[in-house]
């Protein structure tokens, strides 16, 4: 049971983490700004850091899946494939999450764009 879970987390975990960051981050900011406050910084930091870690974790999980497949032998290469692509995907989504959090450095108001 653990192996398939690890494998799918490795392949899809980065995407799920990024999607969650987008929905939570955008949701928090949009509702806060509509209500008149702009005190969202700490939430965004929390969301970005936690979900960034989750994306990184998915790369690690994918790596573990890949090395397990290498050791055990993967006749048709399907698990190796998921491991390799999962590693790349995890890094890609980590960058995406970080970029989404970049706003914390330079912007901090509900100022209309």
């Amino acid at each position, binding site marked *: 049971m653990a192996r398939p879970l690890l494998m799918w987390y490795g392949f899809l975990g980065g995407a799920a983490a990024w999607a969650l960051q987008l929905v939570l981050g955008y*949701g928090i900011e*949009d*509702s806060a700004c*509509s*209500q008149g406050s702009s005190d969202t910084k700490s939430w965004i930091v929390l969301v970005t850091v936690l979900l960034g870690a989750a994306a990184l974790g998915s790369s690690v999980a994918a790596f573990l899946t890949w090395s397990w497949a290498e050791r055990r032998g*993967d*006749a*048709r*290469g399907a698990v190796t494939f998921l491991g390799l692509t999962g590693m790349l995907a995890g890094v890609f989504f980590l960058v995406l999450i970080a970029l989404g959090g970049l706003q914390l450095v330079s912007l901090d108001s509900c100022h209309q764009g």
Partner: protein
Amino acid sequence: MTTVAYARRTTEPTVEAAPRSASNGWWGMVLFVATEATLFTVLLASYFYIRFKTSSGWPPDGIADPKLLRALVMTALLTASGFVMYAAETGIRRGRQRALVLGLGATFLLGLAFLGLQIWETVVVAREFTPRTDTYGSLVFTITGAHSVHLVVGLLLLAWVQGRAWFRAYTAGRHLGVQMAAMYWYFVVVVQVAIFVSLYLTPRI
């Protein structure tokens, strides 16, 4: 044409006739449920979107907080029907035809009771506000209405499967129709829970 080999080779794969993983019909229902679940996610997201954009109170002025009791009873009934459906499914997995027929029937009745309560709820609520009152009304009626439509489809599915069960169409090893109807029914139950939490509970936070 020369081969530029890429993936690894293996020995000849064997063909076994015993199905091991989920069937086509199962996948088809999963995908259908996925798309309908997305529909409800979008509806509820629209509800929260409008709500967080509304700086005055929620529900808007002139509309009271949604009453909990009837909705709680409805949700409890439907949740119970989910467990009954599960019992029916477990029953046929062990080859128990009676458990299947009784379970399907009970699920149907519980669903029908829910529908009756939903209609009553709608009529009562409509005395206070309608979809034409404002966006709150439109959203509430559209969301619960969409759920009711899905529930009615679920009742029709249950009736169909019930009919087939009477003719002993299902066995312990082959009851895909039951699995598919059950999966759809669980979806209907889960959506109701989400609606109850979103529309009835969260405005009180």
